[in-house]
């Protein structure tokens, strides 16, 4: 089990009802964290259009997560 802090933005924050939470989970990659939280909060958003950052660095879905990491989940962006 790893302790991971997850931060949610925009639609993800509204689905989760919290901006941030610390979870204990079995996760090897950022995608595992995404899927865990998606199931936890009943979201149906596919990860394909979403982005992820780990400890304030943009990451890929197959980037490994470590105990104590902060994972930032970004729903599809729409700047401009």
């Amino acid at each position, binding site marked *: 089990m790893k302790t991971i802090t997850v931060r949610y933005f925009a639609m993800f924050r509204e689905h989760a009802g919290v901006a941030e939470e610390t979870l204990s989970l079995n996760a090897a990659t950022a995608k595992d964290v995404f899927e865990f939280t998606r199931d936890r909060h009943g979201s149906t*958003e596919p990860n394909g*259009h979403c982005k992820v950052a780990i400890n304030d660095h*943009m990451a890929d879905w197959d980037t490994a997560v470590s105990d104590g990491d902060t994972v930032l989940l*970004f729903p599809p*962006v*729409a700047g*401009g």
Partner: protein
Amino acid sequence: MGIPSCCFRRLRVDDVIEVTDSVIDTAALQRSLKNPAAGGYCAFEGWVRNENEGHVVERLEYEAYEPLVIVEGEKVLAEARELFPFLEARCVHRVGLLELGECAVWIGVASAHRDEAFKACRHIIDEIKVRLPIWKKEHYANGDSGWVNCERCAAHGIAD
């Protein structure tokens, strides 16, 4: 012995990209691009429009994760400078609740010749829209609201 040309490059003190919750002062931004070597500049202003995909939009709400907007935005500007060498560029993105007609994003590029300014400006706005952690929520006339590219993406079955 000559001074290397790199020494003439002006040191930059202002952030080239920023996020603000205040009205964007486009005139001040234009002035900030002044450079004696510039033959002109191009700007793009993104405005709040009154409809999107058939929905009457009353206002927009922008949210940004500023630390990574700055990091990714600086990469976008550096890439644009490589592709279309310009003299000065700045970008400001607004966050918070915006009314119709307000400026949500401003990009300005000054260059020696117009081609670089037009092309860099276009490149920067195109990249900003798809890369920076910024989200837009539309508030509709019927009281509903929705995050752009999110619910509709899922509703329309756009798969990953």
